[in-house]
């Protein structure tokens, strides 16, 4: 469909501007044939030439199994690698000092401490925040790293070991593997006994509604004190939580405690030794330690 009208198809000279028209006419309005400025046209052709060069030089055309590679061999990965190299060059001196300094000394050196905390915060956000939360505040089943309660110990060396080898991470031979038995599921205690132990534990923690009984004390002694201690104060070596403090990883209501006794088990943390380099692990260790919970 054409909006052009047949009678005005021929170009003519516009009497007002003395300029040629294109012959296109709409509702009596004709279009002047005004040429573009020369520099504009040259620029236009230059951009076309430029695009051909660009098309050849850089990866441009997708193919079924990849794409054209471009003549100059540019690759976005290569430029990322170059950026990383530059970054490492800037960080180099700090990383070197970090690698050489013993963990205990880093915290006493303000400049190194602030560099390591920045590095650790970034590494934490990338690797740990998924489970422990952006501020390491934890969640149900995932420990809060800001508090002073530590399942596996909060000394620098303990934290480092946990990061390197993980918790109940079967792929790592040195992982922390002790696990709470499933007393109910495996038939070691019946439902009534579990209820009595749960009451006993809540009494030891001075939780409201807790109920200590001789039977409860005996059941605790026989089944729980091996790991959690006679006084229920837990054991870092076995990752056994302190049952007498105010902090409960899975919750402190009777139902939760009974369920933990019945089903056992515990959280899992991956081992990071093969995925993060030495300075990063060191920085993470210091960062977590300085969050405030460090022993």
């Amino acid at each position, binding site marked *: 469909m054409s909006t052009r009208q047949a009678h005005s198809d021929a170009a003519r000279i516009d009497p007002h501007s003395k300029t040629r028209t294109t012959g296109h006419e709409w509702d009596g309005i004709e279009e002047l044939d005004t040429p573009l400025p020369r520099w504009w046209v040259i620029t236009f052709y230059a951009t076309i030439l430029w695009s051909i060069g660009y098309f050849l030089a850089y990866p441009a055309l997708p193919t079924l199994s990849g794409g054209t590679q471009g003549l100059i061999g540019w690759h976005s990965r290569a430029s990322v690698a170059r950026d990383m190299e530059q970054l490492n060059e800037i960080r180099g001196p700090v990383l070197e000092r970090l690698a050489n300094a013993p963990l205990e000394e880093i915290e006493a050196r303000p400049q190194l401490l602030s560099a390591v905390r920045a590095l650790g915060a970034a590494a934490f956000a990338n690797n740990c925040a998924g489970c422990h939360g*952006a501020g390491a505040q934890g969640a149900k089943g995932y420990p809060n790293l800001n508090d*002073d309660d530590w399942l596996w110990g909060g000394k620098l060396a303990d934290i480092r070991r946990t990061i390197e080898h993980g918790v109940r991470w079967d792929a790592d031979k040195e992982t922390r593997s002790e696990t709470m038995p499933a007393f109910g599921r495996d038939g070691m205690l019946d439902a009534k006994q579990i209820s009595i132990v749960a009451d006993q534990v809540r009494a030891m923690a001075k939780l409201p509604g807790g109920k200590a009984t001789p039977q409860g004390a005996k059941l605790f002694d026989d089944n729980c004190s091996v790991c959690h201690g006679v006084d229920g104060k837990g054991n870092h070596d076995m990752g056994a939580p302190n049952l007498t403090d105010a902090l409960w990883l899975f919750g402190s209501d009777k139902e939760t405690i009974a369920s933990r006794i019945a089903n056992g088990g515990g959280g899992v943390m991956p081992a990071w030794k093969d995925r993060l380099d030495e300075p990063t692990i060191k920085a993470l260790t210091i960062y977590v330690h300085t969050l*405030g919970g460090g022993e």
Partner: protein
Amino acid sequence: MTSADMGKAKSGSLYAPRKAIYPKEVEGEFRRIKWGLLAFTLSVYYLLPFVRWDRGPGAPSQAVLVDFPHRRFYFFFIEIWPQEVYYLTGLLILAALVLFLMNALAGRVWCGYLCPQTVWTDLYLAAERWIEGDARERARKDAGPRSAKIWREKIAKHSLWLLIAWWTGGAWVLYFADAPTLVYALATFQPGISEAYIWIGILTFTTYMLAGHMREQVCLYMCPWPRIQAALTDEYALNVTYRYDRGEPRMSLKQASALRLAGAPAGDCVDCGQCVAVCPTGVDIRKGASFGCVQCGLCIDACDAVMGKIGRSARLIAYDTQMNCDRRRKGEAPVYKPLRARTIIYAALILAIGALMTAKLATREDAALSVLHDRNPLAVTLKDGSIRNAYTIRFANMSAEPRRFLLETSGVEDAEVEIVGVEPDIEGRMIVGVGADQTRETRVLVTWRGARRAKGQTPILFTSKELESDASVTMRDVFVTP
């Protein structure tokens, strides 16, 4: 130049081609003032980076320095940190008010005497005159055929222009690094100063284009000030004015003296056109106030010279007002009122802001403290049930000496305060050492055993006391209890 003039263009074209302006050289009072200001402002600009100021070891010894890498601005005895950028805001407000005041007193006087565009254009015109000759000669050369001599002159002129432009860009970068070191580095082509080359390039290009090729077009088309100043001026502001009450009707000298002999009135203007010939923006001031007029007063000089020669009194063109021309014509006395509501308000505001800034500067603390509460988590419950909040506290030591700060808190009773990486001294005090002219960020943990009693937020104050002088800064925050 009126808008009708500017719109005068070849019919059919949307654009008026630039009319070449050949401002003629002129001598006189205002020209001398302009030369004086040109010499002064350019010397300040070109030489200021080389002025030294001893700030002791480790600090730059340049009087005026914008130190971006270290985020400091040095101005003689003043050292500005990034958080004090309000001084710059204050300075900009002051500059705007001074501009307003100047405008209320004498119109666009800034444009004619102090604006960089005017100053560099003047310098470029002087270079042009020196090489190519005065206005008439230049016009003749441009209109006639190009001879080898003309080409030589053109090349010499543009080279000199580029040299000035390059020196202008060169002086600019000296404000951002130690000037002598940078000059040496530039002169010996040291690597690693590509930013300096880029900035010199940009400033060379803009100076050459704006002062050499665009000149009055910057004032007429690019600069917003003529439009703004029209809204800021009033009928009492002095402007370069053709006193038509005295000049009109124009007539030849002979006619005028004949009329005067006969006792009839005659205008002083002999229509010699000198006021137009010397105007850098091509304005005919006799057509009345114009947005093209930059108030440089060169037409006054030109007219005064002519008036002197024909034995009439000077200042047919003068700093005056349209209103006074009208009043004189009606037989009323001219009115000069520099003290008006707006000038008094501007002056008062300038004084007030100036005083405020001086006072702020005089009582400026050379130590600062900033407190940031941990947001994630807001509060942490500890094993024994007490609550702990964590804060990021930054100590700033803005003096040239390393200093020690004692951190104390109040507002939360029996709070235990711990700074990560800082061992308390024998008395259990938390003392943080901060190097000269540096900041130190610390993580501070506040544990409150009795927090359970207070739900919500409790105000807490952090005080940093400088150990030697006991000067202190206090910041307020809150202790959050879940």
